[in-house]
């Protein structure tokens, strides 16, 4: 039984680590993501648009299987985890081999290896030492650091470059895992929300996507916000002057624009929208007395401001209704959009001990416009603006960005850094007793360019051989051999 279990575990492991599983998983990710871009997704679509697009029945089915929110569905997350698992397993499965390759370089090629290797070349040499010297010099001249390998019964030259390239693919896989890890951290501990501020307002409450509020340990104040337009009327720039308020004082100030957020305490504030907030910043009026003394004067009122008109009379801006309706002699607020605005002023006369309700526009039966001792003429209504800030906290970001950098480095190594190895071994033909130098090389990618390099190296070894004066034990024998070579 136990053996069976072990076999089963081994089999499962091999399945997970296999490239087929990886490819099948990738195909599934591809198909499901494609579906996620074709079926309307709940998080980015208005509910009635969803209902227009699909019949209630279809919508129920789509909702039930999660196809209306593919990228946040548990099975999509599960799939991504499986992909990660597969990457980890495949890497673990293959890593020991690569590591052995990396940590214990194969320095002396044995005979079977020599027979199978491509490219290779035999160059006739006078004796072992001069051959090895020539190889060493030739390798030096192309920037390698050749190393003499001496074993009990044989010796040779080994040189290599960019051994790290063998591990590059693990760098790429590790970087992908790092990116996944970062996004998971963000998914678990990160949050996103919005914060709308009127000019001058301070707040530390961020409204999150699910409707709940989050209180920040510091507050944000919007000093001013605005929009600049191009000549054709399209927006050119949105900006907000923000201040971070902590412990009752301003600790940081920044003017943010789109593409340039404010970062404080791990929380980022992005410029996301801008517009009128339906509130009046200033109501500009010209006031003139009905009769008698007093002069025409220009006044500007914010809501709840009270201004004296003369010694006896004051005016207060009581209320502003952006969209009003009248029912049963009462004024109601129909909506907060600036559709059908009404302004309510209260003129108080101390001597008469009376309040007069002045309305813009003069609403019948309610407004005392004509009875008021002062008459008003509205000249301008300056609306207040709000700035819409996108707020996000992404603690996993460092993982994502370092993963991206690592991915770039890893890919550069995978595609453009070649692990090249050269061996040179003197061999002796047993029949003729003549020596030749066996030169072989291999590269882990871009083999055709390597072949060219190999041929150059062989040519350079041959040139070196000619240049080296023969210093062998028996000059009489060696000279004819080199002569032959020259022919």
């Amino acid at each position: 039984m136990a053996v069976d279990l072990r076999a089963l575990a081994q089999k499962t492991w091999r399945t997970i680590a296999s490239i087929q599983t990886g490819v099948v998983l990738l195909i599934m990710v591809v198909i499901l993501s494609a579906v996620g871009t074709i079926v309307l997704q709940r998080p980015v679509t208005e509910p009635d648009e969803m209902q227009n697009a699909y019949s209630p029945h279809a919508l129920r089915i789509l909702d039930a299987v999660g196809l209306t929110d593919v990228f946040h569905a548990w099975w999509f997350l599960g799939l991504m985890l499986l992909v990660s698992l597969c990457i980890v397993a495949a890497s673990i499965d293959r890593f020991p081999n690569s590591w052995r390759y990396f940590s214990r370089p194969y320095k002396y090629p044995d005979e079977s290896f020599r027979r199978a290797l491509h490219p290779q070349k035999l160059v006739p040499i006078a004796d072992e030492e001069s051959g090895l010297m020539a190889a060493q010099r030739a390798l030096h001249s192309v920037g390698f650091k050749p190393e003499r390998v001496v074993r009990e019964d044989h010796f040779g030259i080994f040189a290599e470059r960019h051994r790290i390239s063998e591990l590059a693919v693990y760098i790429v896989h590790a970087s992908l895992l790092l990116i996944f890890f970062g996004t998971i951290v963000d998914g678990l501990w990160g949050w996103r929300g919005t914060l709308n501020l009127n000019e001058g307002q301070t707040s530390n409450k961020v409204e999150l996507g699910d409707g709940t509020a989050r209180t920040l340990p510091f507050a944000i104040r919007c000093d001013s916000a605005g929009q600049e337009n191009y000549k054709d009327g399209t927006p050119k720039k949105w900006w907000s002057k923000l201040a971070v308020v902590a412990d009752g004082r301003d600790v940081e100030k920044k003017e943010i624009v789109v593409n340039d957020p404010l970062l404080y305490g791990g929380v980022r504030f992005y410029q996301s929208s801008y517009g009128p907030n339906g509130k009046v910043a200033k109501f500009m009026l010209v006031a003139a007395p009905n009769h008698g003394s007093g002069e025409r004067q220009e006044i500007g009122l914010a809501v709840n401001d009270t201004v004296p008109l003369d010694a006896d009379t004051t005016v207060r801006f009581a209320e502003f209704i952006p969209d009003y309706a009248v029912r049963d002699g009462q004024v109601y607020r129909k909506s907060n959009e600036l559709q059908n605005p009404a302004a309510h002023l209260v003129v108080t006369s101390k001597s008469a001990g009376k309040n007069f309700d002045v309305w813009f526009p003069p609403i019948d039966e309610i407004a005392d416009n004509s009875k008021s001792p002062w008459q008003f003429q509205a000249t301008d209504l300056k609306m207040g603006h709000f700035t819409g800030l996108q707020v996000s906290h992404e603690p996993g970001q460092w993982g994502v960005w370092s993963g991206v950098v690592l991915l770039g480095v890893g890919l550069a190594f995978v595609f453009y850094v070649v692990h090249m190895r050269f061996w040179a071994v003197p061999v002796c033909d047993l029949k003729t007793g003549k020596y030749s130098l066996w030169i072989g090389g291999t590269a882990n990618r871009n083999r055709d360019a390597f072949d060219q390099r190999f041929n150059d190296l062989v040519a350079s070894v041959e040139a070196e051989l000619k240049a080296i004066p023969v210093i062998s034990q028996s000059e009489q024998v060696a000279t004819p051999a080199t002569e032959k070579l020259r022919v």
Partner: protein
Amino acid sequence: MARAKTEQQQPATGMTLIVMVGLAIAFLLFMAFLNVVKSGNLLNETNLLFATLIFYVGAGALYLGFGVTGTESYVKFASLATWLGLIANTAAVAHRWYEAGHAPFSSVYEMLLSFVWTLAVLTLVAEKKFGVKVIGTVTMPVAIVGVVLMQLLRTEVHPLVPALQSTWLHVHVTLAMLAYAACALSFALAMMFLIQDNMKTETFLAVTSASTLGIYASVVLTRFEKWGGLSLVAWNPENKAEVFLSKGVRLFVTIPDLGWLMTLTLLVVASPLVFYALARWKNDDSFLTLANRAVFLSILLQVMTLVMFLVRANDGRYPSLDADGLFPTSLAASPFILSGLVGGVFISLLYLLLVWRRPDLGRLLPSADNLDRITYKTICLAFPLLTLMIAAGAYWANQTWGSYWSWDPKETWAAITWLVYAGYLHMRITRGWRGRRAAYFAILGFVVVMFTFFGVTYLLPGLHAYA
């Protein structure tokens, strides 16, 4: 003997085509010049693009001529025409850049302009550096379709909206254009490989027929209206925009009788596939001859349909089923149908080229092994570029929208493209996929790239609304 004869005849036919293409280019340029003299504005973008188009068409014709006849001198003139087209194209890009005050990356039109430019550059690079002379046979028609599409798109210069005012726009889009052009190149090389690899012409026949069938079937299934009409989106020529009945609901007009023509073409286009199936089923090669004839017929009908479509959809007012009165439409309102029809003709012509190829065409191409390797190399170039493009986009999105990944359709499809090429690399490196399977994979990759580039923009709009 017969061989010697053809060799002798060659210079004659060779010159004919060059002279013809040269005369056509000169004639078109002359006509354009007359127009320009009348309007008095020589160096505007329309003229530059027109010159680009003329040169690219000339280059395309010469490359095709080289593909069919193998005359070496065609290639020289073809690259000359490509060079001239590239100069005009560069001038158009520069003009646009100057006019707009920013790099031409901010609308579909501007992206196409840069894409076509990159494609032409890479074509010349592939030709000169890798010696793949026929590559223009595939890339030039893609460039031509690109320039034609550009004529239909909105060209007004828009100032950059706040979200686009970032250095990352340039990084992101430059990387995207380079990556996409490299993908286009790998696609062309994979096609060359399939030709060099002596893939059976029947297989090409089946693929060609199936893809044209797919094009016409999707047009007929989605747009065939009662009484043989073809419904197209109504177009408002003043605003240069589609007409909407309400939010998200487009107004369709019906062009009478065009639906019948489409259906007829659909049937004819399907017939080669039927003959191919019969040939396979009965094991009788005589059906293949029939199938080849059917391809001829289908090309004739396709060209006719295309011409009718061009004539009728470009102008005129048509009734609508949803509203009273007559409404105008325009080719610009139906970019997909138009590219589908042009693409269909193009694929079928490519098949003809294959049927008519000289038996020694293989000699003119690099060896299959080499093509396979170069395809792999271009993908080795495209993949890191794609990776960097996505990374730059994510970093930028994080600065603008406050989130590095929003599963927006464009993002998702970019990731899908990346995954497809990642699959290619894994199969090639670890499973040793070479040759045909790798070539199919490269072709699939390019199809996904094109969908990400155009399809997503028009079909699946999201945050990436600019392009």
